């Protein structure tokens, strides 16, 4: 009962991607988890194979394909047991800022590298004192002749170590209204005054390089601005919709994989001489899990259609992000219950899911922020 219009070309892309990931990514996952980072060469390899930013237009080095290719990539990446080569963040969350708001010069300069994997991107919004409350950021951007001078610190930045460019949100201290004070800028790696802080140790997502970034009298050309000065907050809000949709796509795909593993385990395992799957409690548990996943899947696919058609689906996106992120945590929790003591050991790959997925109710907007926006949409 799939409702998305996948063509043969989409299926062929998925198959090609799957083979690539099975050969070039999944076998490295354990090493990357140990290293707490992915080598930059992995980005170049996946870029060279044609799987980065498939939506970028031909004028900028991309094949100009539709959003379903991003959906496919996000789903297939969930099978790779690693979170460092995070194509969803680069391709579908950060690079769209450059494409939508960058000047022609900026687009020519960066987009081809984003497609080839030579330019790894990050977006820096969160600060030590500004998490859910994005507007209270304190990083400043002050004009000085042809340059912008940036000062401040950002935290929890994914791709923080590997990034070649970072899109930073900073405010003009002269503007009082905090919603119109924020602008977005591109800062290149190696710009004097831009340094990395700690490579942060997290509960999970160990192959993902999450870091603090510091800006101290960091000077960038004025032309590195994205969009108009003062439009930063509006641009963030506009792009957060796709960010949250991507998050929901990842959550539903992860849930489907967890369900698949749980069903397989229940079929192949015996308790006191009987297959586990014959126990009524196990059957019902799996039936409940399957129902949750399917309901989320249908809602999500419908939402993807709306998103692709350019419909106004903000509240629905928040609903999907909220529901799927809570669901996937419940899924992995229940799956570990099926495994019993085996659910405590690192060699059970669901243990990695348990650690990795705990963040999804927090990042890209917490469940509380999602509910706030949903309530607003109802005029509350």
């Amino acid at each position, binding site marked *: 009962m799939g409702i998305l219009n996948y063509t043969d070309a989409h299926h062929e892309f998925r198959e090609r991607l799957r083979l690539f990931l099975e050969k070039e990514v999944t076998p490295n996952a354990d090493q990357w988890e140990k290293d707490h980072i992915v080598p930059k060469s992995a980005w170049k390899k996946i870029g060279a194979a044609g799987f980065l930013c498939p939506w970028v237009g031909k004028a900028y080095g991309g094949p100009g394909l539709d959003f379903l290719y991003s959906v496919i990539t996000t789903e297939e990446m969930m099978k790779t047991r690693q979170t460092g080569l995070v194509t969803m963040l680069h391709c579908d969350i950060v690079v769209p800022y450059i494409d939508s708001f960058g000047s022609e010069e900026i687009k020519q300069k960066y987009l081809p590298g984003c497609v080839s994997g030579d330019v790894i991107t990050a977006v820096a919004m969160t600060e030590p004192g500004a998490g859910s409350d994005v507007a209270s950021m304190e990083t400043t951007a002050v004009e000085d002749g042809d340059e912008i001078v940036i000062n401040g610190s950002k935290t929890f930045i994914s791709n923080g170590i590997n990034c070649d460019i970072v899109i930073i949100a900073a405010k003009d201290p002269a503007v009082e209204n905090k919603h119109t004070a924020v602008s977005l800028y591109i800062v290149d790696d190696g710009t004097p005054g831009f340094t990395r802080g700690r490579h942060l140790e*997290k509960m999970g997502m160990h192959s993902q390089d999450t870091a603090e970034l510091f800006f101290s009298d960091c000077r960038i050309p004025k032309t590195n601005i994205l969009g108009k000065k003062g439009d930063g907050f509006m641009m963030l809000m506009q792009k957060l919709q796709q960010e949250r949709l991507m998050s929901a796509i990842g959550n539903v795909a992860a849930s489907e994989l967890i369900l698949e593993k749980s069903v397989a385990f229940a079929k192949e395992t015996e308790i006191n001489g009987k297959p586990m799957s014959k126990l009524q409690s196990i059957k019902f548990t799996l039936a409940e899990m399957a129902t949750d996943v399917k309901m989320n899947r249908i809602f999500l696919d419908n939402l993807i259609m709306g998103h692709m058609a350019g419909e106004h689906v903000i509240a629905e996106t928040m609903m999907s992000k909220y529901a799927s992120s809570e669901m996937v945590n419940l899924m992995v929790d229940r799956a570990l219950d099926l495994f019993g003591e085996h659910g405590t050991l690192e060699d059970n790959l669901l243990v990695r899911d348990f650690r990795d997925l705990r963040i999804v109710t927090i990042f890209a907007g917490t469940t509380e922020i999602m509910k706030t926006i949903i309530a607003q949409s109802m005029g509350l």
Partner: protein
Amino acid sequence: MFELSKPQKEIQKAARDFAKGEFDKEIAYELEIKQAFPKKIWQKAADLGFLGIHYPESCSGGGMGVLENVLITETFCRSDSSIGSALVQATSASECILRFGGEELKNRYLPRLAEGEILSGRALTETQRGEDYLNIQTTAEKRGSTWVINGTKRYVENGGDPDTGLYIVLCRTSSDESSPEGGLSLFLVEADRPGLTTESVGKKLGNNLTATARLTLNEVEVPIENLLGDEGNGYACLEQYFVESRILAAAKAVGNAAGSLDRALEYIKGREQFGKKIAEFQVSQHKIADMATKVELARLVTHKAAWYFDQGKPDSTLSSMAKLTAGRAAMEVGAQAIQLFGGYGYMTEYDVERYYRDAKVIELQEGIKDVQKDIIARNVIGKIR
């Protein structure tokens, strides 16, 4: 029983003071990376009499009950979930010696456990899920004045730790098909017996300060007196042991949940977003109300189960209810604590993430939820026909 006695409150305070002075999240963090037992803290805890408080005084114990043991467990795990769990697990399954062992075995080993000289290991499970006790394949065969044991055990607590001095091993002593429950027996096997080898399972989801191993017993000989309880009575002993061990597991979970709540409370009173403390948002307040309620309910049923045990009325229904309720409370309170911390909750710097990982391990040990529900249902429903 709604108020602890004065001596019980004193024990609680002593445990709190000890934990405050000795436990440290940096130490826990380093030990988790190294997967090392908190040896120094363990020996100090033993010196101060926190280990084996439920053993008789003649065995270097405190001569007290399960409730006192629960109070120490809860307090330790609240102060630091991983260090606390490790200290509780130092005497893993030693209750099998205490409750079923002969006088000589008790006098030989309980003092060494209480004094922090050795750790004990628990070697019961063989299957992947860890509950299939009727299908035990490890055998013990009587040859003259010794028992000869062969088999492999999974998820052996303290397995392979250099300080582990003995293991409690569940074996099949007869293959009577008509009564699988009757063919099992429990043994004490010293760790240095020839033929006993361990293989670490490596890193775990949580509870990483204690070793877990696969234990292989190849023609391991133990003397006749190492049999715990009567021959063929192992399953009954095990069921009795679980009534006590599940109360302790519940106490770990209560401590874990209370510890997550403590940390979340401290954080939300300090952190501001949208111009207000997180604690000033009604939704945060209601989260805290739910969390505090869950901790209190878990504590009540756990204390009640311990109190009944100490009154000479061990109640498997209450023990399973305690394990079920407290395990869930630790998970739910832990998840909400991380949520209240936001992104910081996901960082190892704030230890709520470690509490949450430890909570899942506690929930999966000592019988998963379905096992507890099977027991509770059997007791509550009784005979159907």
